[in-house]
Every structure is written in structure tokens, then in C-alpha cells.
């Protein structure tokens, strides 16, 4: 979040702020027009309809007039250089920014035509529908079983112990973890490997049957093998959930997502089908980023 505060918000500062001089090849006249996103940001049947979203940290504008639709059951990847606002934007979708005192969100954000930021909105219900997986695996220091059962217990999803057992087993199966942990459900979750912990966090998130799963760089703390497992899992989950994934790895975005959104200094520069973004990006900033000229 600190990096956001230091970014320069006007276009003039843009050219020397994010771009390292050594790699500077991009023509100097490249500017981003606010609110202008190239590609296909909108959808006919959106799960999320987000219009003119702006996020402020105190006086700093971290997200600048972004409009985007997230379609039902798609996997959309947010990519972009550090501090470009992709995590901030993601955390607007389940109002996780609420706990930051100085953060303000403006604009129209709708989930299935219901206003997310309606003051009367029940955040608990919202977050039950929009689950989240974090960058660093954060299992609770409880048993594996209790971790998965946490959400269902809070939301009263199971009337009987056997119902809860079923939910736990199903979630662990969906997360591809059941066979590894079925004999030690009572063991503490913090004793698992990093990759297992992250898959447990995914199981925990899907145990409350959300409609959307937000993933904030879910593999950045994992080794390549664990990463491959999580990516496989994302592909399987995409059948039944809408998935929004923030990632620093362009290969990962290319492997798992249907659409890719490129963020730059708080702007949403380009949204297109993933194939198109990585083969023939429309915007020159996107091209510079995916070809590794900066970022």
C-alpha cells in the first residue's frame, strides 16, 4: 500500500515514475487517457458490473476511474507492475478495504445488480458470496478440519455433525487435498507445507459455497510444484465459480485465465481475451509490460 502513496498521479509524472530509465524505449508521447480502456472491458452477462471506480488512500488516488465487467464463470487475471492498484481494486470486490481507516471507494460497484457499497449492505453476506484467498497462506492455528469448518459454522450451513463432515470432505476434495490429509484432519494446519496450506485456504474459501473466488497472488509464496497444483485447481474451479486472480506471473495469467486486465498506475489500460493480450496487445503500455521492457 505504501508504494501506492508514492506514485505520481498525473500524466506528466507518469513517464519518469514507473519506468526505469535503463529500460526506457517507449515513445515519450504515450499517455493514458483517464477512464479509457482499450479492448473489451464489458460483458453482456456480468457477475460484477463496476463503473467509474475510484479508490483514495487519504488524499492519494490509487484507482483512477476504472470501469469493468466481470463475466459469470470466467477466470479473469489482473496483471501490472507493482503498485498499479490491482490488489486494491480486487479488495473492493468484497469490501476488504473497509478495515483500512483512510481508504474511500467511489463509483458504482454491483454484484448481480446489487450495490456492493450500499451503506445498508450486509458485508457478512457479501463476503459469504465472494470468497478470498490471500497472497500468503493464512490458515488459522487450528486443526485442518476446524479450518475448513470455520466458514460453514459461522454461517450455520450445517445442522448436523455429519453435514459438516460432508462439507469439509467435499471442500477438501475440490481443493485436491483430501487424499493428503484425510488421515490427519485433527492435525494443526500450520504444520502443513506452504502449498498444502494455500490449498487448504482455497478449501476454506469454497466451503461456504461462494459464487466468486478472489485470489490475491495466490502462488507468490509457493514453489513451482505447489504452484502447478494450485493452477490446476483454478482450472477445475472455473467450471463452477467466477474467479478473479491477481498475479505477478504473466505465464500464470496466460495459463489460467480467460481474460486479462492490464493495470498501470491506477489506470485500467487494456482488457482483452488472454490469448490476444499475450499475442497482439492493443495498447503499447501492455506490449511494453508483457515483453518485459518494464515492470
Amino acid at each position: 500500500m505504501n508504494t501506492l502513496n508514492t506514485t505520481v498521479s498525473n500524466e506528466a509524472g507518469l513517464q519518469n515514475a514507473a519506468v526505469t530509465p535503463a529500460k526506457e524505449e517507449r515513445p515519450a508521447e504515450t499517455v493514458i487517457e483517464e477512464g479509457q480502456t482499450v479492448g473489451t472491458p464489458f460483458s453482456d452477462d456480468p457477475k460484477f458490473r463496476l463503473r467509474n471506480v475510484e479508490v483514495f488512500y487519504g488524499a492519494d488516488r490509487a484507482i483512477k476511474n476504472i470501469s469493468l465487467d466481470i463475466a459469470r464463470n470466467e477466470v479473469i487475471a489482473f496483471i501490472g507492475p507493482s503498485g498499479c492498484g490491482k490488489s486494491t481494486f480486487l479488495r473492493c470486490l468484497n469490501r476488504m478495504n473497509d478495515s483500512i481507516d483512510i481508504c474511500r471507494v467511489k463509483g458504482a460497484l454491483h454484484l448481480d445488480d446489487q450495490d456492493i457499497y450500499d451503506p445498508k449492505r450486509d458485508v457478512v453476506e457479501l463476503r459469504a458470496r465472494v470468497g478470498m484467498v490471500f497472497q500468503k497462506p493464512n490458515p488459522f492455528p487450528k486443526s485442518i478440519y476446524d479450518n475448513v469448518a470455520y466458514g460453514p459454522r459461522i454461517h450455520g450451513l450445517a445442522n448436523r455433525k455429519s453435514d459438516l463432515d460432508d462439507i469439509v470432505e467435499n471442500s477438501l476434495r475440490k481443493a485436491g487435498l483430501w487424499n493428503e490429509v484425510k488421515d490427519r484432519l485433527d492435525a494443526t494446519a500450520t504444520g502443513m507445507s506452504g502449498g498444502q496450506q494455500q490449498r487448504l485456504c482455497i478449501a476454506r474459501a469454497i466451503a461456504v459455497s461462494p459464487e466468486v473466488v478472489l485470489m490475491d497472488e495466490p502462488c507468490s509464496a509457493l514453489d513451482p510444484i505447489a504452484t502447478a497444483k494450485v493452477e490446476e485447481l483454478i482450472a477445475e474451479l472455473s467450471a463452477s465459480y467466477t474467479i478473479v486472480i491477481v498475479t505477478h506471473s504473466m505465464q500464470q495469467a496466460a495459463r489460467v485465465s480467460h481474460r486479462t486486465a492490464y493495470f498501470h498506475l491506477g489506470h485500467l489500460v487494456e482488457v482483452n481475451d488472454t490469448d490476444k493480450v499475450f499475442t497482439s496487445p492493443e495498447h503499447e503500455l501492455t506490449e511494453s509490460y508483457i515483453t518485459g521492457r518494464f515492470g
Partner: protein
Amino acid sequence: MQTANLLPLVLVIAMVAYALAYMRSRSVAAPLGGIRNLKALPFYYAARAALWCAIPALIILGAWAGFEGKVIQNMVISSLPSESVPQTPGEASLVLSQISNVAAGKLDPNFVPAEIVGAADLLGQLRAQSSQFKTTLVLLIALLGGTFAWTRVKPHINARENVERTLRWIFFVCAAVAILTTVGIVFSVIFETVRFFGKVPITEFLFGTSWSPQTALRADQVGADGAFGIIPLFTGTLLISFIALAVSVPVGLLSAVYLSEYATKPMRATLKPMLEMLAGVPTVVYGFFAALTVAPFIRDLAEGIGLEASSQSALAAGLVMGIMIIPFVSSLSDDVINAVPQNLRDGSLALGATQSETMKNVIFPAALPGIMGGILLAASRAIGETMIVVMAAGLAAHLTANPLDSVTTVTVQIVTLLTGDQEFDSAKTLAAFALGMMLFIVTLLLNVVALKIVRKYREQYD
């Protein structure tokens, strides 16, 4: 020379040794092409010289100060003619104080026997000799040590290792001092307690239900038999501590939750120091607050609803004590709750848990060991608190569970036993040690039990 003067002198010599060794190491290094050609930095050579200088000298000085008095005393006593050699320790100390008073000029030599005057002269002589000898020896050793270290400032000698090793020992000694002091206190209490049980049977002490420690000073005194049953004292202590904890644990814990989870940053920055100020109020102030404001208020209230209440009550003392120990619970709990990683909170909130569910299910179990620590600290404060109880709960040892009655506690009784004129080896005085011992055992058990509870229920997050 006096030890008080000698000590700074040794330190000055050590500083000089430090400076000289520092300069020498630089001048040794110069022809070699700079200090990087030395085995250690100049600081280490200098520090080693200072340590060589100071430590042996200080050890000698300490040993001398410790044994000088005894040795001289024995020499003086053995110089007395055989018929006036004291037979008992009591006599010996009488004779010795006479001798030293004569030597100090406080007692006219004409009033005491000639052998005492002779001994006083001898005492003066011995003291002068000892002082002279001590000064010479200490200074010599300091100088020798310093010089030795100075000559050992050589590029191939690794002073760093020497200094590190010495420092390790110094740290060890510091740690040992704390432990040995505790052990010493425990043993001295144990010995006195054993003496007490020689006078009062242990069963009467542990299971007696009446406490009135007035023993007869003279054989013909009436009505003072002395009863040493600690049960009323312990019930009093437990009653008051229980009331205090019943106030401070919920209030302290919940205010910690508010401060760490709900309060905004500026709110927290103002409230926390204010809450901690409660801990800075002297207990005697709490004491008269309890005695003059709270206790009468409780009595009036109780009488208002038709209950009988004494003007000094366990409830008044317990309530005020509870207020006093709130900061112990809240401040420590607040710290440990804050130390629970934010990502656990996020994880719970993102699953749709409310703030209080997150608190109850995730943060509280993870912070439990620290919270227990805070409560324990508060409990031991409550058990050990004396002043509030003296002022607000009284001195009468009633065996009661009625919080409106006046009770007394173990610590209050220790105070009353040891203040005022008493023979040191009377049962009354020794009872204080036995009470102290019991208190120590109880708090120790409390700690052990709490540790076990924490081990069992804690959820370790890292």
C-alpha cells in the same frame, strides 16, 4: 584508603589503560598499513586492557570488603586474656561493640576494663594495617594487569575473542545474581518457617480456623494464648482476590479488545496511556479511596436494601483493587492481541465472519498465552496487595464468605506481625515467615497451573 575511594581509582586506572592500549594498538597498526592488519579492532585491545586492569582488582577489593571485618574481629577476640573471652554469641557481640565503641571514641576508656582498651587499640591498629595493605595490593594488581594487557597489544593476538569470552562471563554472573538472590530468599524463609513449626504444630497452622497471633510476653500474662490457623487468612485473601479479578479480568480484557480491534488510531493513542495511568496511582491513594469513599457507599447501599454490612468490607477492598489491576490485564492483553498477525484477521473476515466472531474464534485463542500472562500478573498483584486491604477491609480475621464482612489477608497479617516490638524468635514473629512461605507456594502453584492451561489450549500461529 577506603573502599569507596579505591573503587573510582581502580576505574580511572582502567580508563587510562583503555586509552593507552587504544593508542598503542593504533601505533602498532600504523607501520603494518592500517588497523585492518590487526587481528582485532583497536577497541578490543583497549577493552581487554581495561578488563585486565579492573576485574582482578575488583575481585580482590570485593573479597577484602567481605572478609576484612570477620577476620579482624576474630583476631581481636583471640587477643583477649582467657578469663574475659566471651562464651556465648550474645556476649561476644556485646564485647565487640564495646571494643569498637572505645576505638571510635564514643565510649570513655576510663569506664571499661583495661583488656577492652587494649583490644580497642589492637582493633585500630589492625584496621589501619588492613586498609594500607588492601590499597597497595589492589592498586598493584590493577597496574600489573593493565601493563600486562598493554604489552600484549600485538597484531597477531586476537583480543576480540578474549573480550567476547569475558563479556559472556559477565552476563552469566549478572543472570546468576538474580537467581541466587531468589534462592537465598527462599532458603532463609524456609529456615525460619521450620523454626516456627517447632513452636506451633504444622497441622494447627494449616488447618486451624482461628487466627489471633497475640502470644504472652510474660508467663503471668492473661488472655493471650495465640492461635495460628491460616484458613481465615487464606479465605480472606482468596475472597478479595476473587472480587478483584472478577472486576479486572472482564473489564480489562474487553477494554483491550476495544482498544486493539475497534478503536480508531487516535482514539487508541489517547486511551491507552490514560488507562495505563491507573497503574501509576500509588496504592495508598487507592487505599483511602476505598476506605473513605467506596466502603461507606457500599455499607449505605447494603443497609438501604436491608443487608447488614460492616463499614470495612471485603467488597470495598476487592472492587478498588480490581480497578487498580485493570491496566495489568488490559495493557498486556492489548499488546498480545495486536501481535496476532493481520492476515489471520483478514482470513476470518474474508470468510464473512463478523469482527466479534473473528475476535472470539481466531484472535482470542491465538493470543491466549499472553492474556493468561496478564491475568496471572494481575492475580499475583491482587494476592500480594496490602495497603488497600489494611485500609478498607480491616485487620480482623473472620472466617467468612460474605463479601460485606470485614476480612483480612495474609500480607496484611505479615505486616502487623512484623511491625511493633517483638522478640525475634517468638512464635508471633516467626509466623510471618511461615505465612510468606505459604503465599510463595500458592503463587507458585498458581503459575504452574496457569502454564499448564495455556499449553493445553493455546493455538500457536507461527
